[in-house]
């Protein structure tokens, strides 16, 4: 969207429902239904992809699934999945096609963990910043005189 990895998908499937949670039985080891969980699932079809080797063009798919009733999140995941697949195939041309960019910045724990770290004390590094700031300011002033 907006030129940073153009995918306008056609939503092929978008559904919300309960899925069984299967766990191995503690004694028999057999998969047993332990409960159910609300999920949203989405599959998108995006514009066809040609191939430099003259292979027949095809539509491409993207898939997303998340907990709870959250359609926008599932659609977004499906679009990113499609964008990342293109990036893996042809090399990323946009941030949305770069797995390193998307996976490390979209993940809740990874991204939030670092933003919350900014509330820790930083007075040593700030002192060091002040030293650089004062020195460069002094030099600029001296140059203007």
């Amino acid at each position, binding site marked *: 969207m907006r030129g940073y990895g153009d995918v306008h998908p056609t939503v092929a499937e978008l559904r919300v429902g309960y899925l069984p949670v299967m766990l191995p039985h503690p004694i028999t080891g057999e998969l047993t239904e332990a409960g159910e969980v609300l999920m949203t699932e989405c599959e998108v079809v995006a514009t066809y992809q040609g191939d430099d080797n003259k292979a027949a063009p095809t539509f491409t798919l993207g898939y997303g699934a998340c907990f709870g009733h959250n359609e926008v999140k599932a659609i977004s995941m499906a679009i990113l999945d499609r964008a990342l697949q293109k990036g893996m195939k042809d090399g990323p041309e946009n941030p949305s096609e770069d797995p390193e960019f998307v996976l490390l910045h979209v993940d809740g*724990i990874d991204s939030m963990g670092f933003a919350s770290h900014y509330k*820790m*004390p930083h007075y040593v590094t700030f002192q*060091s910043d002040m030293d650089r700031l004062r020195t460069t300011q002094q030099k600029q002033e001296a140059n203007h005189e």
Partner: protein
Amino acid sequence: MSNGINFAFLDEYAKREIRRSVLKAICIPGYQVPYSSREMPMGRGFGTGGLQLTLALIGANDTLKVIDQGSDDSVNAVNLRKFIEMTCPGIDTTTRLQEATLIQSRHRIPEQALRADQILVLQVPYPDALVIVEPSEDKRKVMHGEADYSRLLVKLYEDIVKFDEITISHRYPTRINGHYIIDPSPIPRYDVPKLHNSNALILFGAGREKKIYAVPPHCPAEPLAFDDVPFRIEDFTDNHGERRACKLCGSQESFLDEFIDEQGERVYQCSDSDYCEQQQELAHG
């Protein structure tokens, strides 16, 4: 342990993996060894990389010191120390550098020289010095392998052209053993020379970025500079050209914190609280 938690929290497989990564890091000084970086019961960015190193290395006979910004009482240091004490029964903790066998630190290397029987663990937010010139880790890995640091040198050069100074204040790029350039963690430039030919093993742990690297003992560590523009540490001289002193211990040799006191006066004080206390003890006999 009676509550079902393994000694030092991590399971033995996790510790073994970290120790193997440490060995590799020591064998290839400055190389960032990837490791699995377990989830810890605290947020990424709060020292989980340093913590995992400490937990993988600590034994019941160790004496631990934990500091943040040079202080044993800083919030991050207190929390980490409490957690390690809780999960490592039998260890001792100390604030005295000389008593410690294992030191975990954020943003500082202690003022006083480390000994060969000590290990320093530094918490690392950004492990890769090349990140300021190249966002893709794939490409950075190739650059490190080829020791291609030209873009980093260009960045320093551009600084000099623009500001007549290298503007990197902390996390100063440092070449280890003549090859790999590391991000030495957010220590001030003042601490960078302590990496060079250190008596102690210095380990770096980046939990969020899942990397471990090392500056082994007696290993060359040179901050990046030019022949005609030398590397410079923070300047603590006042307007009269005198080195500022700590208002508590009077030291004119330590890295100082600057702040405004309750009277509105600008004052300076040692960042390393243990060093400052020891200097005060010396002064008072």
